[in-house]
């Protein structure tokens, strides 16, 4: 494997007596499309937040122990805006729109991290909206968009920051089957342009189809790490997450 774009070393995070992440470690190669899955409460979102510099409940950014490296540089505990500048973008599980602004403004503000001029950022925003198929919504307020469009917009906003690594936290949750298929196509096309993508997902079909590698978390620990076909046959995974239905099949 070429030198990893992201390395997570022994990351642990406790909330009182609950261990949300227990010495999680993995490397991500540049250009990879990786999925992290796990049942509810497995610690996926906590992991996402520890990597991305978003403040955790209790006001702390830093994990209890462990390190996160982006292209070999220690980024543990750096604030999200610094990480964004370094090329790590994230899309939240709950949509976090700039609600009073238009779709174009949302994306242009993302582009502002790379350019000084707002007018230039608007031009780039138009290109990015085109890329995700939302050009026709450019002038509309975010509040008027459908859920699928809002999620797409958040991806566009993250893309506008020109990331090397994109973290998507359950962006497909709550979408219809067609919308999930469209989202999968979008994720593929993003990854196709050379951006490394980490999906944190619940929608299993999407993950199986789209990623070459899956990491499974359960109760804060990594219980499997491999190709989809290997992971679905893994005993620990079947017990912890997939349930008996797949065992029978």
């Amino acid at each position, binding site marked *: 494997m070429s030198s990893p774009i992201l390395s997570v070393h022994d990351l642990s995070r406790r909330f009182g007596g609950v261990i949300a992440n227990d010495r999680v470690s993995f490397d991500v190669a540049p250009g990879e499309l990786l999925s992290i899955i796990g049942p509810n409460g497995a610690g996926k979102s906590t992991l996402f937040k520890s990597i*991305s510099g*978003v403040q955790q409940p209790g006001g702390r950014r830093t994990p209890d122990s462990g390190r996160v490296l982006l292209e070999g540089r220690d980024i543990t505990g750096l*604030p*999200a*805006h*610094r990480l*964004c*500048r370094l090329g790590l*973008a*994230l899309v*939240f599980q709950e949509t*976090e*729109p*700039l*609600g*009073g*602004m238009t779709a174009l*403004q949302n994306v*242009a*503000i*993302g582009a*502002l*991290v790379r350019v*000084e*001029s*707002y*007018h230039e*950022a608007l031009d780039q925003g138009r290109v990015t909206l085109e890329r995700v198929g939302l050009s026709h919504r450019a002038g509309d307020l975010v509040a008027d968009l459908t859920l699928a469009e809002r999620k797409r917009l958040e991806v566009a*906003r*993250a893309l*506008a*920051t020109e990331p090397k690594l994109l973290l998507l936290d359950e962006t497909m949750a709550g979408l219809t089957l067609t919308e999930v298929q469209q989202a999968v196509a979008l994720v593929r096309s993003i990854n196709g342009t050379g951006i490394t993508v980490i999906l944190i997902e619940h929608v299993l079909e999407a993950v199986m189809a789209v990623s070459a590698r899956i990491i499974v978390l359960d109760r804060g620990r990594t219980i499997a790490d491999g190709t989809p076909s290997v992971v679905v046959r893994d005993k620990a995974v079947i017990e912890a997450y997939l349930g008996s239905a797949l065992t029978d099949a």
Partner: protein
Amino acid sequence: MLRDIARNLADLAWPWRIAIGAALLFVVLYAMIGAPYYQSLLMSICMYVVLCSSWNVISGITGYVSFGHVVFWGLGAYTTAILIVKLQLPWPLALVLSGIGTAAFAALISYPILKLSGVYFAIAMLALAEAVQVLVSYSRGLTGGGGGIYLRPLVGTDLAFLLMGLLALGLVVLVYALQSTKLVQSLYAISNNELASESIGIPTTRRKAQALIFSAFFPGLAGGIYILNTAFIDPKTAFDIGITLNIILMTVFGGIGTVLGPVIGPFVFMALSETLWAQFPFVHRALLGVAIVLLVLFLPRGIMPALRMAAARLSSRRSVGMNAQ
């Protein structure tokens, strides 16, 4: 950023250019030939335009509603007075330094106070203004204490009106020119969603501090101009919460978060207040209260957004009409 400012100014439609030119001409001419009573009234209005426009930057655009904005005005007045009385500085220098001093004060308090948001920030700013008032009242050697500080009258009403008018006009044009720039768009983003803003690379702490510093500088100057003209100020006037409440009322009246709301607000509000006072001297405050209640009921977002919506409706009706033909 400078390129954006230049472009925004270049994009300004010609009716607005004419309006700005006319306002400039009026301020200069009226300072020369106007009646002192109206100069004084207009100076008060212009002072509130400065206070409202600057409050609007931190509270309307950035979304951090401050209940202590008067503190910057009061500090500006005191700094100007102290620099003139104690250091015998020429008044123009004292004025500029008081603007810079007030901005520096804002920079100093920005880090702890902007960690708070919502109602906590509002109350912290209120408490700050009260604390500064107490501090000024007790530092008798420097500030003259509760009795206030006196100057020789250095600036006549005509010149004070000219300075305040130019300051107000300059600030409003500047706020307009800053609209489509990285700074102000980042501030709008912060007021919309701070978490999202941070995640797309906006250094929210730094941007909020910049907004607070910007919004402190201009009241500092306005306070300085005020005391150069009145030649006296005491802590009760300088840090009067009534001024902050007026600022909030007028800005909400005109349209919070807009460029022209903080301009229209003081004009309409002061004109209304003066008229009611002249016509109904005994009940004018009650009538003003009724007017405010009516406004909040019928134009909850203020005059500017209501005008904008009416204009949009009119133009859409016109285009529908044209389509029908």
